[in-house]
């Protein structure tokens, strides 16, 4: 049901490709017990683009993200991140990864959690003052001034995820890989975090690959929404989101927004039907 024309979406012309998936296949397990998680995915994500991956559970959207992050390796095809192998991109600290759980270290204060990547990377030519400045700037960007010396367990879920966001941005990666970052948050906090993430995306010029279960979230944030089918995971359709920027609450109330939400929902419905 997938025509080659819709599954292969070239990046908007005139820009560099940040992440390129080419004929990517991923099997888990081996022999007779192997399950095919992803079958031949072709997808290009341009620099500074915000792309959402959406699909039923088991469609391999998190797997795609982990392939780009070099947390797992593909069984076939190739993945390029900033025109490098994912491993090289990982070692060059080209991306920040954000998990569904904030994954903060309980024994570190908010400040020291954000400082963690800088401690490990030992970025040359970056003085202590410069690092402190950077951490301060990031904490203020995510609205956590005054919470520097708190410990993660003293914060709400939303605040913890902000810390995680600051930690991913502190070393200025060109790419953010986000695996359902707001999936565990309540609706109100989630809406707020979405708008903030959008603001941060505009301010920082990062490329974002965003995995989500939420259709409204995907439409509100993205330049393109990639709808995937389940078992095995394939790209069903890539839907361009032609909403005006910046994406604000007003955009969320526009007719076009609702049309696009419906379009994604219908595409997702076809993807589910195809997967069964």
């Amino acid at each position: 049901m997938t025509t080659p024309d819709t599954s292969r979406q070239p990046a908007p012309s005139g820009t560099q490709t940040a992440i390129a998936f080419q004929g990517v296949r991923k099997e888990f397990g081996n022999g007779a017990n192997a399950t095919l998680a992803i079958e031949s995915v072709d997808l290009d994500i341009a620099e500074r683009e915000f792309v959402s991956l959406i699909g039923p559970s088991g469609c391999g959207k998190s797997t795609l993200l982990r392939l780009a992050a070099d947390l797992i390796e593909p069984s076939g095809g190739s993945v390029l991140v900033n025109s490098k192998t994912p491993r090289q991109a990982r070692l060059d600290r080209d991306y920040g990864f954000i998990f569904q759980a904030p994954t903060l270290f309980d024994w570190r204060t908010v400040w020291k959690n954000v400082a963690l990547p800088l401690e490990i990377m030992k970025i040359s030519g970056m003085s202590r003052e410069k690092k402190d400045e950077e951490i301060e700037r990031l904490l203020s960007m995510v609205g956590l001034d005054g919470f520097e010396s708190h410990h993660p367990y003293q914060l709400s879920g939303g605040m913890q995820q902000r810390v995680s966001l600051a930690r991913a941005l502190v070393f200025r990666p060109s790419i953010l890989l986000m695996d359902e970052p707001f999936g565990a948050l309540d609706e109100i906090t989630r809406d707020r975090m979405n708008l903030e993430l959008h603001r941060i995306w505009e301010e920082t010029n990062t490329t974002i690959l965003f995995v989500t279960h939420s259709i409204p979230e995907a439409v509100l944030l993205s330049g393109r929404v990639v709808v995937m089918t389940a078992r095995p995971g394939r790209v069903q359709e890539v839907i361009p989101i032609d909403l005006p920027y910046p994406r604000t609450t007003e955009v969320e109330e526009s007719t076009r927004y609702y049309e696009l939400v419906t379009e994604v929902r219908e595409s997702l419905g076809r993807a589910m039907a195809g997967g069964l």
Partner: protein
Amino acid sequence: MSASAGPEVAAQFSARERWLTDERAERLRSASARITLVLILVALFLGGWEFLKWATEAPRTTLPHFHEVVDYLFSINSQGDVVWLAIGRNLRLTFIEALSGLSVAIVAGFAAGTLMALSRWTGRGIMPFVIGAQTVPIVAIAPALVIWLGTGWETKALIAGFLAFFPIAVTSARGIGDVSQDSLDLMASYGASRTEVFFKLRLPSALPYIFTGLEVAAAFSVIGAIVAELPVGSQEGIGVVILTSQQYFSLQPESLFAAIGGACLLGGAMVGMVRIVQIVVLRGHRAQELS
């Protein structure tokens, strides 16, 4: 939880401050509650002791009054020493044995636990020895060790360490191995080395586990030191006092109770020491009841 609104954040911050003050008051309340509880338990213990004596009509040679034990502590023994000072001298030696044993066990247990958690093959090789060490009845091999290695304090320290080794090895293995995949992936995404993963993630997240093992190990080290003192040949230590008191029980029953009390005090002191170190080291760690 506001991001851009400055005043709102400030308001929340002061709420945090208030919360911290509340926490301080709460800590005071819980401290005074704990002292009251200890006093009640002491009263219950003494009441139970005297009630048992009254109900069974036990003579002094079976169960003396508590105050008779206290009087005995301040009496002069056959060597012309004040009894509590003499017990204290013996406790000091046992304490040195237990502490030396515990120190060795901390190093060896942590090393074994780390290997078990991180290295599949070495870990599997070590495991049977760790379990074997735990199942060997210490009372049975203590006399043999004394014969082989002599009656010096080092032998007793070794036996104390032998007993303390197991809880430390097991909790270290558990703590160091039990790290979430997300945390490991996070460290990998920074290109962290194995050493960095160990010192920045595994070790700090294992510390609460390890301290739980340390508390048990501290108590075990005292038991090990006392058991090691029991075989004939030892001259000093609280184990020797217990053994001698046992032999003269019908003549001087207070002596045994005083020695047992001393041993309990020593065990309590060892565990207390570990707790104090734990409080200092784990400042900032999430209190375990919160997790």
